[in-house]
């Protein structure tokens, strides 16, 4: 220890190691890059070309914004109708999901129900069963001649419409099926939040003279607002991108009148013509909508974070 050695502290703090961190993240970064980011970039790029099945190996060219113009240009274009239908579906369906989820959560959280665990297990079944199976079953149930719904209606003498071949009736079936599939998620989240509310709050409110409705408005709602909002945002995203239900029930309604956004994209890619460029442009627009939803979600969670 005669000389004072220099201190080139090349060793950084134990948890501030770029190299080690990136090493550990390497496989996932590689996968994400190749299998996630590249496809997204690819899709954005293709949106500006006229690529379709015919010219995929060569012969496609960049056509600038032509795809976007074709989609957005005229208001009577298919695009706007699909968008409108999807928005409508999302709005109605999310509301239904929240309604039922809330109702069921509150109902099953209240006192006086025997065998709560069994009840919950039953009520959660729609979530447990694989979605595509349930959807196919519902499709069978809505079948005009032999489906259960019409069998029941026939039995009581009510009219038995052709559910899946009428545009708006089919739209209604989409809502029934998707609500059935999706409400357990909402219910579970709300139930979890409800169980976090101390019963003392309700007791003191009762002493203060509050009725059920007041208790709901001033205690329950505010306290479950955060998880409720986040779950709603999540399911809005999922519902907006819903594919299985319209596809499996009647492939987008009579003559494609009920195509949702994702179904339209699918049909454009895999249907006749295989217009990849157009589909990409379309999906990129969808992406923008989805990002807006996601961005809202971030704002909500951050605002709620600050509230604390």
């Amino acid at each position, binding site marked *: 220890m005669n000389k004072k050695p220099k201190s080139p502290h090349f060793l950084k703090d134990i948890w501030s190691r770029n190299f080690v961190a990136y090493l550990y993240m390497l496989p*996932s970064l590689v996968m994400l890059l190749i299998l996630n980011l590249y496809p*997204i970039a690819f899709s954005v790029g293709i949106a500006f070309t006229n690529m379709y099945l015919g010219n995929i190996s060569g012969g496609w060219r960049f056509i600038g914004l032509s795809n976007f113009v074709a989609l957005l240009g005229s208001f009577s274009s298919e695009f706007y109708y699909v968008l409108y239908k999807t928005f409508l579906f999302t709005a109605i369906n999310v509301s239904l999901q929240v309604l039922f989820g809330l109702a069921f959560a509150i109902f099953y959280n209240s006192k006086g129900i025997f065998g709560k665990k069994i009840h919950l297990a039953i009520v959660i079944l729609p979530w447990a069963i694989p979605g595509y199976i349930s959807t196919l079953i519902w499709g069978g149930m809505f079948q005009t001649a032999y489906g259960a719904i019409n069998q029941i209606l026939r039995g009581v003498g009510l009219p038995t419409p052709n559910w899946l071949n009428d545009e708006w009736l089919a739209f209604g079936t989409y809502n029934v099926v998707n609500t059935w599939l999706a409400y357990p998620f909402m219910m579970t989240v709300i139930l979890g*939040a409800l169980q976090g509310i101390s019963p003392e709050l309700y007791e003191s409110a009762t002493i203060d003279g509050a009725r059920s409705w007041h208790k709901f408005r001033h205690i329950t709602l505010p306290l479950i607002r955060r998880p409720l909002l986040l779950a709603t945002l999540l399911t809005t995203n999922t519902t907006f991108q819903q594919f299985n239900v319209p596809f499996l029930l009647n492939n987008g309604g009579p003559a494609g009148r009920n195509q949702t956004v994702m179904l339209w994209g699918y049909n454009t890619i895999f249907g006749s013509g295989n217009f*990849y460029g157009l589909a990409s442009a379309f999906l*990129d627009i969808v992406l923008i909508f*989805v990002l807006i939803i996601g961005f809202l979600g971030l704002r909500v969670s951050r605002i709620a974070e600050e509230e604390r």
Partner: protein
Amino acid sequence: MSHIKKLRQRIAVRFQKISKKRLMFGISKNLLAIILELAIIFPIIWIVSASLRSYNSLLTTTLQIIPPNPTLDAYYWVIFQSSFWTWLRNSLFVTLFTAGLVLLVASPAAYAMSRFTFLAKKPLLYSLVFIQFVPGLLMFIAFFYLLIFFGLYDNLFGLVLIYTAFLLPFNIWNLKAFFDTIPKDIDEAALIDGASYLGAMFYVVFPVSLPGIAVTAFFSFLTAWNEFIVASIVLASEENYTIPIGLYRLNQTTYQTNWPLFSALSVLASIPIVIVFMIAQRYLRAGLAIGAVKG
């Protein structure tokens, strides 16, 4: 003996405390619950009933919950004469492989994100969230390119890769949040005790995070098992079909002629996953609540 006495006492006490009005209320609540639930699981009842019909019998236009001559013929056909086992084998392969790959890749990444501070950490975290929102179909054309380029089209492993890519962002994020709940103290203790970063991760953090890892594995398994549309696009030859595709095909081909077959397969395909789900649903509820609250 004393058990029954205690039970009797308890019921007596319970009923003592309840007034008539409350009793009515309580009973009607339970009744309502039962009616609701029957309505909800009606599709299940219907399909089970359909699966017990003799196939090749015509469907009726009137409702018959209890089939006229219940038989297990449809089940026999599915188990012994359909490609059920091929589908099962393929589905198992894909799901197990996917769950394994996701765990293998996501765990170290989540560990790094939880413990270390490094360049571009924040943007990376945000992009993980961002990717989850991107509609899958958007990436599809590129997937095709990639699959064909690597020769993995119509290949079960190609499907595994796509599923893994889809599951990675959520699971890295989720695992990271889970690791965050484990204090760095024990990592540091392990480091001082002579483990390197790898040792600290394997011997200490992973074993302690077993519940979180189980959730990741479970979710990956569940997603891959129930996935239909991507599988139907990627897999072309019959010997590669997974259960969802097999089921869809059966539905398409037997729509009005042989509904019981489809019904039987539906029931068979659903039972295992429903059982697993029921077992896991307790933990799901807790996990989701935390996730929802913390965002």
